[in-house]
């Protein structure tokens, strides 16, 4: 630590707060859950069929609120559409609106196609109010002949194929936002987008696994053990890859030991000791990696598998949030003078406070619950297919 710390006068307040942590966290879940659903819709992995619809709708629900943290962060949220009205081709942020809208269009269309038969069925069997709602959702297309369903299935698969790179870009580009800031040695890395995509996939598996277990418990139905086990194994594998990438990036920084390394070392050991060392590495990475090993032997009791998977998923979601925190907040804690550090605490109240964070994280789950009331998440909407 510098005996005479010094920070530039404009660095007293962090320019990017917890809302900018939340944004990549949510987009990661958006992309990750979509990729989980694509394992069924694209690669036809039947083992993921019980969670494919849940993952797809979860992706939409989180995507619907992905912009909220950004709007709360902007000092002029009323000008948010300026990003799309006068976009700068040289700015990474300017691409956000177009990428987000493209993804939203894909996921909405895919959901509509997946649930179209069920929507039309409800439109004819429900009363006036709900029937009208379903007729609106049907968008005037009422044909559900086998030929129409076959075309739908083809479109669903095509959209899922297109959606995979778009989802990766949606979350990877957030990593690019940070990786492209050459003035910040903690951010400036070409590995940053890759790391963001990897942890997004991890969060997608964790959210799907956790929601599946909770939903099964709430519905008093037995979960598909094979699905749970495979999700846990995939979670273990993707977590191992993500943690390795994160570790390798840090190792390279330490091994190169450039001029800024002493600052980064002090950042990790003093200012991010808890969020990095304890939360990201120990609690969020090592413990889940051990817990998820229970998914590999077949003799592990179902209840034990379920509990360990749920616990591991929660810890992994903590890890991903901690990783986002350490990148976004950590990169601002040291001065651009490299001679001092600033402190940051999340206020409880206010538009960038802790309560707002909790509400934003809760809203997608509320929307998911509402959606599950409207769309049959747990039924196969295309039973006629053979």
């Amino acid at each position, binding site marked *: 630590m510098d*005996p*005479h710390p*010094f920070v*530039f*006068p*404009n*660095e007293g*307040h962090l*320019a*990017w707060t917890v809302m900018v942590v939340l944004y990549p966290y949510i987009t990661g879940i958006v992309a990750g859950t979509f990729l989980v659903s694509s394992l069924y819709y694209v690669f036809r992995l039947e083992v993921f069929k019980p969670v494919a619809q849940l993952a797809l709708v979860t992706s939409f629900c989180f995507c619907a609120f992905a912009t909220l943290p*950004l709007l709360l*962060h*902007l*000092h*002029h*949220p009323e*000008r948010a559409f*300026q*990003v799309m*009205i*006068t*976009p*700068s081709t*040289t*700015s*990474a*942020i*300017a691409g*956000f609106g177009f990428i987000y809208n493209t993804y939203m269009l894909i996921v909405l269309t895919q959901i509509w196609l997946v649930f179209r038969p069920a929507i*039309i*069925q409800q439109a*004819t069997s429900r009363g006036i109010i709900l029937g009208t709602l379903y007729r609106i959702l049907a968008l*005037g*297309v*009422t*044909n*559900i*002949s*086998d*030929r*129409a*369903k*076959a*075309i739908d299935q*083809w479109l669903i*698969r095509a959209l899922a194929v297109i959606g995979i790179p778009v989802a990766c870009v949606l979350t990877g580009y957030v990593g690019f*936002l940070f990786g*492209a*800031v*050459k*003035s*910040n040695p903690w951010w400036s890395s070409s590995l940053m987008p890759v790391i963001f995509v990897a942890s997004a996939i991890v969060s997608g598996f964790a959210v799907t696994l956790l929601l599946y277990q909770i939903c099964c418990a709430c519905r008093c139905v037995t979960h598909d053990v094979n699905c749970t086990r495979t999700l846990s194994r995939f979670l273990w594998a993707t977590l191992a890859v993500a943690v390795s990438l994160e570790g390798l990036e840090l190792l390279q920084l330490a091994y190169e030991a450039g001029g800024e390394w002493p600052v980064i070392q002090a950042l990790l050991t003093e200012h991010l000791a808890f969020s990095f060392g304890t939360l990201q590495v120990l609690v969020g990475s090592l413990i889940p990696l051990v817990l998820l090993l229970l998914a590999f032997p077949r003799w592990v009791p179902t209840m034990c598998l379920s509990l360990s998977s749920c616990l591991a998923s929660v810890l992994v979601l903590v890890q991903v949030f901690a990783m986002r925190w350490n990148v976004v907040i950590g990169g*601002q804690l040291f001065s*651009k*003078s490299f*001679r001092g550090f600033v402190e940051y605490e999340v206020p409880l109240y206010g538009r960038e406070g802790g309560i707002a964070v909790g509400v934003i994280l809760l809203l997608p789950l509320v929307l998911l619950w509402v959606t599950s009331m409207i769309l049959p998440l747990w039924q196969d909407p295309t*039973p*006629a*297919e*053979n």
Partner: protein
Amino acid sequence: MTHKPNPSDCGCNGCGCEQTSELTESQFINSRRSFLARATTIALGSVSLTILAGAAGDDASPEAAEGETPEGDTPVYGFLVDTERCIGIGECLTACREENDVPEGNARTWIERYVHYKDGTVQVDRVPESGARGMDETPIDTKLVEKAYFVPKLCNQCDDAPCNQVCPTHASITSPEGIELVDPDICIGCAYCVQACPYGIRFINHDTGNADKCNWCYHRIKRDERPACVEACPTGARLFGRLDDPDSELRKRLAKVPTRVLKEHLGTHPKLHYIALPGEVI
């Protein structure tokens, strides 16, 4: 998909009856085609409007319009700081704050003091605006000091400005004179430019919600006046002038003495140069 569509399949919501489909084959195709056509028209229309509005937004940029000067007579400005002349009196800081209404807690320009102790340590701190009355903290025992100097900081007006590059809305613009400006009408306050500036110059002005920065007193130089900090400096440590005029004092000084720029390795190509700038200053 292994299922082969059968034209005779029932279309009445899979009820299993023998009725014909609600739509005939041609109606079905027409329905889908018209739906896709309408959706495509709306999407293309939205994109076109966005592009047109974007082009209009570029032209409507108020500061860009203000910055336009007659062709062929556009001056290019530069700045030279002589650290050996700066005495840390802070007059420039007060002048800047008053001229530009800079909010408390932020600074468009500041002066760093570097104190080298005989034990090898270096103390860096910031000169207060009341620099003439001395530093706020406990006086330093001069017997322990090997050397000390002052370094004024202000916007580098980089030729390849990262702050300008990352702005998503064209709110960060470069004037024809090479000055980096902020359009207060379209800045969304995302603070990406604040992150991208390697020199810590930019900040979010909490009074306006916009990104704020030193612009070398652009409003003054448009009136052929010097920046407020240059006017206020009693020792001539801050020199402002035309880079494109071989007879300007700035060009003569730059040709005569070796100068350095801050964080040269980042490739931002600043127009702010320093005389006698030690390597430890970043």
